């Protein structure tokens, strides 16, 4: 039988290059524009502001990348964040008299956030995988539920962290090490770990397989139910982490907290080159997506060439343009 020539065959590139450079180009273009429009744009202060602000959406978007790669979707993250933030504040305020201002209360709050996020993710995941309802519907439902739960907890108003506690907790958002603020550090950590697990980890491989073809994955003895469940739980946890970073910023939560975060996160994921239909995802792309989105907003605030009424329009155009840059990859769903 004639020997094959495969030994000599070069490993072909996995993706058309445009999908890889596309988002990067878009990002660089934005940075150049920003730098031209305003000298302070590239200043330390502004960059820190933008990056720290992106951290919330960013951390969530990392989890969203896993969910979408596995073929899922989660519309509830925004209101989930609001709810968790509200819960954290209520719990911490309640525990204050007992524990007093100090690390214990914060740790209690952190625990609350993580556990709440885990449970919330678990609920979404179970309804989707075990009960078998479209992810879109489940998370649309829970989106409404969490949103009105926080409104109800706050009596329609705003839940505020006790003032003393706020000043104690504040540094978690505003300080950092070596001039890098904590949100940025945590965001970076999530990204690095996420990227490694998605691209090099067995779990990530199983996530992609499940999203690419759940039945094949099943026949390859991948426990697809557990994998999909895990992605939602992971996302829930990361929402919790994001909230832990968010609460110290203003020390309050209301029913306007986290509005539209879900759309921003999903948009970031797709701009980053992950397939909405699942099967392929990359965390580093998501990061670029997040940065693109928050830079657009930042640039719009740094200039007054456009009427503030039109900010939304500019953002819309930019999002589409950013994706056109890498359309080669996927044909519109």
């Amino acid at each position, binding site marked *: 039988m004639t020997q094959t020539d495969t030994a000599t065959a070069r490993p072909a590139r996995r993706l058309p290059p445009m999908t890889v450079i596309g988002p990067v180009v878009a990002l660089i273009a934005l940075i150049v524009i920003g730098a031209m429009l305003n000298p302070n744009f590239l200043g330390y202060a502004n960059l820190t502001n933008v990056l720290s602000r992106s951290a919330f959406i960013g951390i969530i978007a990392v989890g969203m990348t896993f969910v979408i790669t596995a073929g899922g979707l989660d519309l509830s993250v925004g209101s989930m964040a609001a709810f968790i933030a509200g819960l954290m504040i209520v719990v911490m305020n309640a525990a204050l008299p007992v524990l007093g201002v100090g690390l214990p209360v914060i740790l209690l709050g952190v625990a609350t956030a993580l556990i709440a996020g885990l449970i919330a993710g678990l609920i979404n995941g179970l309804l989707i995988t075990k009960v078998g309802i479209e992810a879109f519907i489940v998370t649309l439902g829970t989106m409404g539920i969490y949103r009105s739960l926080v409104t109800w907890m706050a009596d329609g108003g*705003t839940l505020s962290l006790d003032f003393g506690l706020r000043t104690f907790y504040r540094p978690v958002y505003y300080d950092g090490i070596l001039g890098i603020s904590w949100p940025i550090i945590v965001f970076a950590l999530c990204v690095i770990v996420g990227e490694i697990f998605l691209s090099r980890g067995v779990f990530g491989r199983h996530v992609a397989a499940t999203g690419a073809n759940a039945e094949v994955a099943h026949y390859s003895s991948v426990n697809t139910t557990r994998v999909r469940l895990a992605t939602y739980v992971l996302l829930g946890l990361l929402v919790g982490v994001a909230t832990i970073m968010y609460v110290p910023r203003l020390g309050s939560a209301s029913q306007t*907290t986290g509005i539209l975060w879900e759309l921003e996160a999903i948009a970031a994921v797709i701009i980053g080159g992950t397939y909405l239909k699942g099967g392929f995802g990359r965390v580093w792309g998501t990061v670029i997506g997040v940065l693109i989105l928050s830079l657009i907003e930042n640039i719009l605030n740094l200039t007054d060439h456009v009427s503030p009424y039109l900010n939304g329009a500019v953002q819309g155009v930019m999002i589409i343009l950013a994706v056109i840059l890498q359309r080669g990859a996927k044909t519109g769903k």
Partner: protein
Amino acid sequence: QDTTVIGVSIPAATHGWAGGMNYHAQATVDRLEEVYPQLDFVLATASNAAEQVNDIEDMVATRDIAALVVLPFESEPLTGPVQALSESGIWITVVDRGLSVEGIEDLYVAGDNPGFGRVSGEFFTQAMPDGGQIVVLRGIPTTIDNERLAGFEEAIEGSGIEILAAEHGNWNRDDSFTVMQDFLSRYPQIDAVWASDDDMAIGAMAAIDAAGRDDIQFVLGGAGMKEMIQRTMEGDEMVPANVTYPPAMIATAIEMTAVGMTSNAPVSGTFTIGSVLITPENAEQYYYPDSPF
């Protein structure tokens, strides 16, 4: 025994002030249902004009209300439907925002948005006699917001106060925080901020603290949120004053309507609840510790 039903239709708590207004509405309804056993209340909150019209339609169709207390989400779209109600003989109480046709309502408890802007503007003129550079945080794009800004600009006319920029903070702490951060990196010198709302003021001040900038002399919010009034009371330089736009006006309206329904005391007419400047001197009387707002 036959109960009279009073419908209350208000915008949902999509921002702090509305939240306070929701709270007062709820509280008043609960209280009045105790006081007047012959009264029954229907409270509906809407997140846009169309939804508010739905609510009002439902009240008429299914709860045959004898009176309606409405805080129009927007004037224009509500005018038609409410007019239809008043023609069918239902008592109409309009709160805060007038309808676009005169004389539909039996009772009008009015807020004064241009006034709110004007009072704020006047405070700036006397706080910054020799002018200065300020930035403005605007609310959710609505007629109210436009009226307030117009009133403000009118008041600072020719006072040498220059508005560097105005962006929408959507009466939302996070958005105003973001906008303010960017204003700060955009303008090396800002003398003061008109946040036009206490939620936005809180967001803006958080941004200012974080940036450690000391060029900003003060931030003027509005609508009298309790934390802010407290800070004014305590003489905080950053919060030298506040401008009332009491969400409690809904309570007044509901109460007067209830009285009108149960007695034959004359309650019709127009009651304008003007915006008042709160200063450290008069702060106590505007401080409601138990309100969520």
